């Protein structure tokens, strides 16, 4: 941070402030909308809660309904009353969690083993195999969808958690191996050699020494993989499909969008429910996240 002349500094801070406002405004709008009554959501802009606070009547009903599937009574245009059960995101939330946690842990564990093998063990084909693994970074996951869909069809895996864990593992591995290799291969040789001389096996070295030392790399990689898996839509659409009971949050949101208009108040609350976890992870672990980003792109 440098201090320029005061007019320049004023200009810089002002411009930055405006940019930040523009960046926050859309999210802020959604947050306001999610607290508005269902009748007004599609009638007036969310900013009217600020311009006319007296008529705002904010409510947390949308969240209640989204989280508990609260029963609501609707009166349609003919005057008939009907009771519908609101969209319940609890299940989708749990599904997202069930998909995400193993889909983060499994690839990182497997990648760490592989990275250690490539970095510190000697075996024929080491170099060429490593090059192939890194080269697989260029393969877009779209290319794997059709062949995998057929395999899954044959194995009757479509719509199971296993199918989607494995898919996320496969698609996440090249980057994970690459980043873990970069980290593990730069640990000082002397630590590993002295442990081996002391009679520790490679397995022991890996488990007791390398994994604890790699915590920073594992932390940043986990955040990435978590955000990627939690926010993923394509892989879920292809491999879970419309299997009821297994749908993750992003899929549920997609269906809520599909319902055009009448359920928008729920959509807003639902969108925020889906963002709570990634935003918490992100804000609390931002430091690791940034470190990971830098590791994947520039020298920090």
């Amino acid at each position, binding site marked *: 941070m440098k201090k320029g002349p005061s007019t320049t500094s004023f200009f810089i801070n002002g411009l930055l402030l405006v940019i930040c406002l523009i960046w926050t405004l859309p999210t802020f*709008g959604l947050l306001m909308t999610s607290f508005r009554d269902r009748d007004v959501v599609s009638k007036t802009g969310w900013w009217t809660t600020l311009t006319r606070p007296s008529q705002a009547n904010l409510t947390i009903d949308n969240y209640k309904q989204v989280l508990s599937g609260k029963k609501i009574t609707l009166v349609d245009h003919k005057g008939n009353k009907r009771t519908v059960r609101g969209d319940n995101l609890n299940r989708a939330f749990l599904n997202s969690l069930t998909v995400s*946690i193993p889909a983060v842990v499994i690839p990182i564990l497997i990648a760490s083993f592989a990275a250690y093998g490539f970095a510190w063990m000697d*075996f024929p084909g080491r170099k060429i195999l490593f090059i192939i693994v890194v080269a697989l970074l260029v393969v877009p996951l779209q290319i794997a969808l059709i062949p995998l869909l057929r395999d899954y069809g044959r194995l009757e895996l479509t719509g199971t958690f296993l199918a989607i864990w494995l898919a996320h593992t496969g698609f996440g591995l090249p980057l994970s191996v690459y980043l873990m290799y970069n980290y593990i291969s730069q640990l000082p040789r002397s630590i590993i050699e002295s442990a081996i001389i002391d009679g520790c096996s490679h397995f022991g070295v890996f488990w007791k020494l390398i994994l604890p030392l790699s915590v920073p790399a594992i932390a940043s990689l986990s955040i990435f993989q978590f955000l990627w898996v939690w926010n993923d839509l394509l892989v879920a659409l292809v491999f879970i499909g419309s299997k009821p009971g297994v749908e993750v949050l992003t899929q549920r949101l997609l269906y809520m*969008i599909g319902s055009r208009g009448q359920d928008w108040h729920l959509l807003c609350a639902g969108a925020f429910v*889906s963002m709570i976890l990634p935003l918490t992870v992100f804000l609390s672990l931002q430091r690791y996240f940034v470190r990971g980003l830098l590791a994947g*792109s520039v020298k920090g």
Partner: protein
Amino acid sequence: MEQSRSKKDFFENFFIILGRAFFTLFVPITAFYCFFKIFIILREGHAPQIVLTIIAILWGVGGIAGLYFLSYWLISKLPAIWNKRILPYLFVGPALVILSWYLFLPTIRSLYLSLFNETSTEFVGLANFLFCFTDEDMLISYRNNLLWLIFGTGLASGCGLLIAILADRSRFERLAKTVIFLPMAISFIGAGVIWRFVYEYKPPGEDQIGLLNAIYVWFGGEPQAWLMIWPWNTLFLIIIMVWMWTGYAMVIYSAALKGVPTSLIEAGRVDGAGEIRIILSIIIPYIMGTIITVSTTILIITLKIFDIVYTMTGGLFDTDVVASMQYKQMFAQHNFGTGSAIAILLFLAVVPVMYINLRQFGQQEGFK
């Protein structure tokens, strides 16, 4: 190699190869089998959701680690010389098996499938590729993807650099960076919902609930259905992506800016260069490598962009991009031939960009 030992070596090598193959496959296949069985049992037992979740997580976390331990225990029972030669394959094997199944073989299989008809029963030669280059919707998707490439990458990278430079000279750098960075944690679909309320259209006369239309009307315009008019709809979709990925560019540029030696900048000042001149002639050339990595990374994301288009417009109003066309070919048309052909094209487009990206990254020697 010594000739006299060759026969004994042959058998030993044979068993070692067998051992390597076994331990390469042991962890993934056992894990696969156990997961599979447990799920069938749980599904048929109609276990409550929360139980399923907990078991799934415990299995996912503990099961794989347990299998590695089991394999290691088995290997350690072998004679020392074998142990030494087989153990590396326990480490790298599982990753290689999964990568072969999920990325390596599918690339070859997609290439193969792309030469067949929609049900993969009849060889059609290059007909699918011919379709890809002649079909009108496909051509539209290339045109849109080009817009994504140019504007998406340019704007995200440009805004990122601008904000990084501003933040570097500002008093509330941390706050500003967090605010700009935050959208990265949101899913494309969440971002889609957020921006829906910016682009929403109501007929003239009614209260506009979309921010953009409200502003537009306030300045005296007619409300517009922004997502229905080409090319503006694609540009408005691109803005969502820019909103999300500028933070990424900014964080990396910001770190790179901190690496520019102050002596260089001071020297520029002494020579009488203004702030703009310093940025253009000293800072930007200095961080050129970073600019290339950031831009290529974002370029790859725009090449494969799918979620935004699919959730915002579903590809209607001429907003389709290559990845959404592929999805349509797969699931709406059930045409696996064309779907594979599009995937191959996508692959061919990504390769050179990724090559530049990795080479640039390699030059900067990476982690820590």
